[in-house]
């Protein structure tokens, strides 16, 4: 069952902003990234460890630093409470499944600790596809 994108964004924002692991080292976690889920794009704007905005209908001119692109099926696998092998992280899925990492990956690497934690919050809130 597809989750309403607006309410999903609100939940993801709340989970991120209240996550102790992210907030313990949240200062300077500032970047913009795109979740490309095939049927839907999500643009997350992070500022000092907090979600500044989640755009569930980004346009072609809305800029981001890096993007994660995969099929809706792969995103649904990411969002299982306990993902199956090879869907349990961005490196696993980019080595073995259809996830593509694009854009300025240096920004991803500069923020990798917090991004990795935030990505796994999808296991708690699901994905809107």
């Amino acid at each position, binding site marked *: 069952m597809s989750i309403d994108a607006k309410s999903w964004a609100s939940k993801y924002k709340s989970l991120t902003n209240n996550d102790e692991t992210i907030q313990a080292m949240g200062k300077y976690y500032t970047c913009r990234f795109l979740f490309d889920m095939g049927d839907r794009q999500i643009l997350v704007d992070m500022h000092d460890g907090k979600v500044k905005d989640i755009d569930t209908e980004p346009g072609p001119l809305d800029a981001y630093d890096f993007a994660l692109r995969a099929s809706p099926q792969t995103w649904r696998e990411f969002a299982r409470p306990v993902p199956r092998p090879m869907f349990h*992280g961005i*490196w696993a899925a980019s080595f073995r499944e259809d996830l593509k990492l694009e854009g300025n990956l240096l920004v991803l*690497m*500069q923020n990798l600790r917090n991004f990795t934690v935030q990505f796994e919050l999808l296991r708690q809130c699901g994905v809107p596809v």
Partner: protein
Amino acid sequence: MAKHSPVTGRYVTIDVDGSEYKVFYLHNGEGQPLICQHTAGCHNHQWRGLLEDEEITRDYNVIAYDLPRHGKSDPPHNWEWWKEEYKLTADHYVNFIVKLCDALELKDPIFMGSSFGGNVALQLALRRPDRFKAVIPVEAADYAPGFFLDWWRHPHANAAQVCGSGVWDLMAPQSPDMDRWLTWFYYTQGSEAFKGDLHFYSVDHDLRDELANIDGRRCPVVMMTGTYDYLTPPEATENTARQIKGGVYIEMEDIGHFPMSENYPLFKVYLKEALRIIKERKG
């Protein structure tokens, strides 16, 4: 009353291919020597569960060392290592392990290593079946390309966090948070060596044409890989073991690329089986 661990640490100085290394190792137990290699860019605390396991150390002399440039084992003391990029080779790695076993006077040791330690276990079985009773390559394969990357020490990113979080999803989501974060913590400490280690792991180690020359009947090879390992997936290990005479493959459910470190109680179930097989074959 102080809570002391039975594990003790010592240094031993050895010469390997002209490099003088002061090697740090942890030790506990008596009986059959079981010498353990940590993963690339890490150190011997990955074996903390095994080192303190009374059931194993009752019959096994467990030794876990830090490879030079890792943990408490310094880079070489007799030449200016900082003027050269570190790139570990199979030759030097094998020579180091044999020299260390000789220095510690280990008789018929079992060698166990994970990831790049597992790959060198295969190298030992190929090159020095006379020196080892058996090998246990964990998360290993004949060839493991793809990880010799500039990201591990890029000056524009926090290399400690890149290494710690870059290997995060090599672990299984089922593994306990504490153990996964300890493994993450170890990885924040090894970023200067990680890439050079991976030169061996992903570039210099290539046994695709050599597996038929490993005699697992003379030196048993018991390979074990976790189902959440994306780098050396189970099928890669199984395919390797199948090509080794007498090779054994054990699949480990719901665990990843750092099994001894991310979930020791689960790893132990499989380790006991590996040790049982070796005992059955070699006494």
